């Protein structure tokens, strides 16, 4: 079972952090591995996931979309119906319960689209923890609604003006805060990235997506799906869906990353397509960088996919061929957004719209008895203003 005891998935992962953080990572790892199998912890986690977050989420058969493409049956795993509007809450409830066990009273986090930030702010309110969220100044601008939501929940949102002013820089600032206040503060990392044990712990908390999917598809179809499809950047919704099927060799995994203006342009966030192995934010993984090892600026219309790295377990899946990684452009994601709205009456988050976009290439070429499950990781309310603004510009 990966990661190994040093936090590696093959050659990926590890702990590349300042010495000051090593004791905190050890404490987190020790606490998590102790409590995760405790009956009390499992009961608390199940209680909040069910009663508070609204799990299990439906596995919805998208009949119209299936008919439109005329190929494989398409199911949507409705993480957008979770409390706060995305899968991020699965992880923050889990980490909040671990935080309480460690006796820490303050949490900090980074956020890109603001979905993780809102999920953190939510558990901070619920469990009476003080909370600061770092967010790139550019993201603050394009995700105003989520900023306001966090503030209403009692969280302080700190705009980050260094570097590219997006998720990567928010993570830099969160790490700097953690190194300074580590005695009292837990860093509630939002993706399956960062130093060990985060990639493992976040995956475990998100694995509820795949576990439910397995149960639901067996009920509905009496067999496992042929394809699992999810958007990937850090990749927490994807790893949550994929991981419980890891040993089912016939279930193919496809991760869709954001290629922005195009894979072969500079305005891209296609880490798997264009990255080389490198070290950023505590772990070894594929990374968009120049020849000298400077991290490249990225672009995606989806703030939650606008990051130059990827979780180490995804790098391992790519390296070993267990998963395939493809990409969708800004334009393709926007088209998928409109398509899902019109066909199924569902407004997906722009991040999730990247996964939906790939259906156009995959579904029509598959036989009608094949099954695809798409993780609809979040809902699109947060993106309405940005989309409206974009369309306004186009029409003037």
């Amino acid at each position: 079972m990966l990661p190994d005891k040093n936090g590696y998935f093959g050659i990926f992962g590890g702990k590349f952090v300042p010495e000051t953080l090593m004791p905190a990572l050890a404490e987190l790892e020790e606490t998590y591995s102790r409590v995760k199998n405790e009956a009390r912890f499992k009961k608390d986690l199940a209680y909040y996931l069910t009663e508070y977050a609204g799990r299990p989420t439906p596995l919805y058969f998208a009949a119209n979309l299936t008919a439109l493409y005329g190929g494989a049956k398409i199911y949507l795993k409705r993480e957008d119906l979770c409390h706060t509007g995305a899968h991020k809450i699965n992880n923050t409830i889990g980490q909040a319960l671990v935080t309480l066990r460690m006796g820490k009273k303050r949490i900090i986090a980074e956020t890109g689209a603001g979905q993780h930030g809102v999920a953190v702010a939510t558990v901070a309110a619920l469990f009476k923890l003080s909370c600061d969220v770092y967010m790139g100044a550019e993201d603050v601008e394009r995700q105003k609604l989520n900023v306001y939501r966090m503030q209403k929940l009692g969280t302080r949102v700190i705009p980050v003006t260094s570097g590219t002013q997006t998720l990567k820089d928010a993570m830099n600032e969160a790490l700097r805060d953690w190194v300074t206040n580590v005695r009292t503060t837990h860093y509630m990392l939002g993706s399956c990235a960062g130093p060990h044990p985060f990639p493992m712990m976040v995956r475990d908390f998100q694995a509820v997506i795949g576990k439910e999917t397995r149960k639901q598809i067996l009920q509905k179809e009496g067999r496992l799906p042929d394809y699992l499809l999810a958007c990937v950047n850090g990749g927490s919704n994807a790893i949550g869906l994929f991981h419980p099927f890891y040993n089912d060799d016939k279930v193919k995994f496809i991760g869709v990353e954001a290629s922005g203006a195009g894979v072969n342009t500079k305005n891209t966030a296609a880490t798997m397509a264009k990255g080389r192995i490198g070290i950023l934010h505590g772990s070894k993984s594929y990374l968009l960088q120049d020849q000298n090892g400077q991290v490249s600026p990225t672009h995606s219309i989806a703030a939650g996919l606008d990051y130059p790295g990827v979780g180490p377990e995804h790098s391992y899946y790519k390296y070993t061929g267990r998963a395939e990684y493809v990409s969708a452009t800004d334009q393709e994601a926007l088209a998928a957004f409109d398509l899902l709205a019109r066909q199924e009456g569902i407004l997906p988050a722009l991040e999730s719209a990247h996964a939906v976009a790939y259906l156009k290439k995959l579904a029509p070429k598959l036989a009608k008895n094949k099954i695809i499950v798409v993780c609809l990781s979040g809902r699109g309310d947060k993106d309405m203003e940005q989309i409206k603004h974009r369309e306004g510009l186009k029409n003037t």
Partner: protein
Amino acid sequence: MNRIEKKFQELKKLKKPALITYICAGDPNLKTTYELVLELERSGADIIELGVPFSDPIADGPTIQRAALRALKKNTSLKDIVSLVGKLRKESQIPILLMTYANPVYQFGVKKLAGSSQGNGVDGYIIPDLPPEAGREIRQEFRKENVDLVYLASPLTDKRRLNIINHNSSGFIYYVSVTGVTGTRVSLPGEVSNQARSLRRLADKPVAIGFGVSNHVQVKKLAADFDGVIVGSAIVNIIEQNLGKKDLVEKVGKFVRSLK
């Protein structure tokens, strides 16, 4: 014996702590860095730390972040900095360490960097996001070429980890004075001297203290408990305040002399 070890031995005989000065290479350009290193030596620095600019310096505060940005605007690379040290070796034998994050080292190639460092007279490396557990490969390659790899210890490092750090560190041990990032601080926490004493008891190599040290009073106070005192952001501040001015190098020299 490399230059770092030799320097600490000389200073030990004189019962003097090492003054270790940090500047970011390429800030504002490599030509000035060249002149600054020579000026730092003339002004009483015993060891030089040259920062390698990185796009995502998570262990650095705003001052050094800005310096790295200035250096990156000039496309300063690890390769350029190693060559710069090679040039400096015609004029100076002062011990020089590079402070870099892990990624540029891996992209350069660990083995290649070890050889190139040895050839150009780079005496060692400090890599703040590389704890001993992650640093095995780099340490082994560097050791073959007699290039030091200095590990860091912090106020939160317990005895078990201090032993690991002491065992694996070469050149000296870099004790981080506070939990936090680089940058000047008005006062340093009282716990410094307690931790220092237990670290000194344990360590069989020199211990230098850094992060937050910015003036003569602090240097003098810390000199009693440590084999070396590292001053970084305070010097980078002087550079920043004098950007574009003719007497930038001179001003830095004056400040470093005031530290002694």
